[in-house]
């Protein structure tokens, strides 16, 4: 009975929740999930590649703060393509480790991910020679090629006068004996107001964060550089609602002919504080 009550309370959202998300879709900041908290997030990317059908790629993320310096996240990916089909495309499991305790001018975080996907269109990162042409195959063809990949990232983040600047350097290896592929992303954001309001409010300026984000591929081990790589840039905005839900949106623009011309990204995240303690009825 106690467990039943805990589950009902859990999904009825009966607790005050907190979220202070950065409005980034590809770039990771150095900020970790708070220990014990579970974040549930739905990422979406919609686009119309040149000469191909429009798509909506989605990712359901479950992120858990294991320690102050260790965050573990599990993703389920899927996509829907116009005039084609809607399919489950695979899963990812990532872990982020913060080696330095305390806050510094530049804060490094090490990221390790394993993914098993096929026909993925969530565009959670762009590496190697990823580009518009990858979206041309019908789902029935694309899902035949399974990508079992190991991805490493060096995440660098800084906070200065309310601004957050984050840079990611990405190296990805398809375990089917393919070369290492590389990519990058960076983003900067700032709350619209730095001080908090004395009264509780839903649409105070400090609940909004705005910024810009850019990312792209850097070729692979044999052809490192910008040749035949895609790049995206766009403004990004989020709003943290009082209940702990954060809504994010970003229109992003392909910067060359190799890129998808436009992407529309939106995300909703929800954070449950002290998840397991609540399940045990300790809160």
């Amino acid at each position, binding site marked *: 009975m106690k467990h039943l009550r805990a589950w009902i309370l859990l999904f009825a959202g009966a*607790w*005050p929740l*907190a979220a*202070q998300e*950065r409005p980034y879709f590809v770039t990771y*900041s150095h*900020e*970790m999930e*708070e*220990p014990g908290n579970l974040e549930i997030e739905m990422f979406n990317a919609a686009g119309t590649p040149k000469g191909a059908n429009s798509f909506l790629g989605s990712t359901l993320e479950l992120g858990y*703060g294991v*320690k*102050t*310096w260790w965050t573990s996240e599990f993703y389920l990916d899927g996509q829907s393509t116009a005039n084609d089909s809607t399919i489950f495309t695979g899963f990812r499991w990532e872990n982020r480790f*913060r080696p330095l*305790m*305390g*806050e510094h001018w530049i804060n490094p975080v090490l990221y390790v991910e394993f993914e098993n996907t096929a026909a993925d269109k969530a565009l959670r990162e762009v590496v190697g020679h990823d580009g518009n042409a990858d979206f041309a195959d019908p789902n029935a063809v694309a899902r035949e090629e399974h990508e079992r990949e190991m991805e490493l990232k060096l995440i660098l983040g800084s*906070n200065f*006068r*309310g601004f*957050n600047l984050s840079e990611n350097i990405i190296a990805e290896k398809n375990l089917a004996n393919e070369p290492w592929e590389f990519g990058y992303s960076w983003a900067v954001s700032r*709350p619209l107001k*730095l*001080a*908090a*309001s*004395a*009264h*509780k409010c839903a649409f105070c300026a*400090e609940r909004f964060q705005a910024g810009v984000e850019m990312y792209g591929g850097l070729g692979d081990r044999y052809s490192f550089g910008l040749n035949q790589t895609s790049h995206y840039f766009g403004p990004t905005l989020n709003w943290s609602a009082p209940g702990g839900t954060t809504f994010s949106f970003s229109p992003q623009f392909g910067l060359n002919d190799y890129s998808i011309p436009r992407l529309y990204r939106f995300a909703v995240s929800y954070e449950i*504080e*002290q998840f397991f303690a609540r399940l045990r009825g*300790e*809160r």
Partner: protein
Amino acid sequence: MTRVLWWVYSSAALFGILSLLAFATADGAWLARVPANDHQKTNPYQGQAEAISAGRNIFVEHCAHCHGENAEGTKKRPPLRSSRVQQEASMGDLHWLLYNGNMKKGMPSWAKLPDPQLWQLVTYLKSLQQ
């Protein structure tokens, strides 16, 4: 054999010393790590009623789930009405702790909050002693 015993006793002694050090540096040890400049920092919102109110909102949103609704502490997290927080620590010390966290002890860094919000939070915490 003598050499093995020497290693066993040395390891045990080293373990003991490290354990004592760990015990000695627990809880309030973060206070000793605060640099002098940070210790002396002044709070731009000190004593302001609006800052206390804003700080209370921030506390409820980000801190209460660990430290209790009224900072009384919980089973695993310390109270913030203690003499360490209210008397021993300066406002600058608390700001330093919020900014850097005490990660090995489970306290995350709150550098993701803008500096004015950290000071508002400190203002609220210090108001609890009154």
